[in-house]
């Protein structure tokens, strides 16, 4: 994406105009350069996304020692694969089991483990998700297409302080013969937030 290069099917909105005005003023004053902004946009549009997390999960599925390190110190183990940084400084990994299903929300804001999942989707940031997931997780999961058996315990994590959470999903039945690289595409963002099982 280049700066403001998108087409505008409708009139620019007030917020769009204000953001453009701020960028123009900062650039014209020489306080920032366009390539600084571009670098961030490029990073989250192309480099940092749920594929990072999927690689972490696939490694944990095939490598028990890695899995143990991941659960003991998420940040360090994720760092072994080259991932880390803003909003992932303090990562903790929540292991799903046949008995327990973990799901993550941030009621106060929309905190999210950027280095392994990228930037959050709209529904994660929605007031509906933020308000409801802590009170009626099964109802919200069902709306998102995930109906959990009654004997699975739901554990909700509200990432209210410094730690960001990543769910380690169950390895799918029937995937025993697959190699690490073949497992990666089976892992979705929704698995790692916990809204898919």
């Amino acid at each position, binding site marked *: *994406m280049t*700066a*403001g290069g*998108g087409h*505008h099917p409708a009139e620019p909105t007030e*917020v*769009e105009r*204000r*953001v*453009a005005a*701020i*960028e*123009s*003023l*900062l*650039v*014209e004053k*020489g*306080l*920032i*350069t*366009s*390539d*600084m*902004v571009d*670098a*961030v946009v490029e990073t*989250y*549009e192309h480099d940092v*996304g749920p594929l990072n997390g999927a690689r972490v999960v696939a490694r944990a599925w095939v490598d028990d020692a890695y899995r143990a390190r991941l659960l003991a*110190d*998420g940040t*360090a183990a994720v760092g072994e694969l080259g991932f*880390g*940084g*803003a909003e992932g*400084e*303090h*990562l903790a990994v929540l292991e799903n089991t046949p008995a327990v299903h973990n799901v993550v929300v941030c*009621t*106060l*804001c*929309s905190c999210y483990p950027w280095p392994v999942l*990228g930037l959050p*989707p*709209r*529904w994660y*940031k929605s007031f509906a998700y*933020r*308000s*409801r997931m802590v*009170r009626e997780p099964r109802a919200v999961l069902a709306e998102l297409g995930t109906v959990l058996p009654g004997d699975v*315990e*739901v*554990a909700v*994590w509200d990432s*209210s*302080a*410094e*730690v960001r959470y990543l769910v380690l999903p169950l390895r799918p039945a029937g995937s025993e013969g697959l190699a690490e690289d073949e497992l990666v595409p089976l892992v979705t963002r929704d698995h790692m937030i916990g809204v898919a099982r």
Partner: protein
Amino acid sequence: MDGIHDMGGMHGFGAVVAQPGEPVFHEPWEGRVVGLMVAAGAAGLIPGSLRPRIESMDPAAYLAASYYGRWAHALEAGLVATGTLTVDEIDTRVAGGDPVPTRSSATSPALVAAIGGFLDAPGATSGVPVAAAFAVGDRVTVRRMAPEGHHRCPRYVRGVAGTVTRVAGGWPHPGEHEPEAIYTVRFAMADLWGADAEPGSLALDLWERYLA
């Protein structure tokens, strides 16, 4: 502050609707606002945290804005608070200007690298070692409070008892500098929402000052 952002448990916000194949940024300006926030931070133009500025939005404006719309508010508020820009000059530019931002001819390889460094900075799962009044397994009760300042103790856990499941280490409370212990505390859903709540548990991370 116990503001509009503290919405855990509230009714009235409707269904959760996912959009398959959603782009990272729905509009170019959303990407620019994230980029501007990081770039302005890397250039030292905005000290302090994003969240207090978002939380102090007028509540009606908070609810009317999108997520990146709230970032845009915080970006502007931060730049105005430091005197980097004035509301007048932004208003003037909005009234007369092009919605396509000016592109700089200059580049900043060093600052771009600094941004890369910021975005890739390694960290640690736990904060620094610090004295902790509670231990794993302890029953704790969240204090009643009504703090004016930025905090991370949602209203829905106030007065509720839970169990410490992890002593996470020490971090400074927002707005402070000395580390203080953070605990992961697990609550039974029924203790939060009543006897007819869904079964299950809810965990969150609470600074020691929130607990008794």
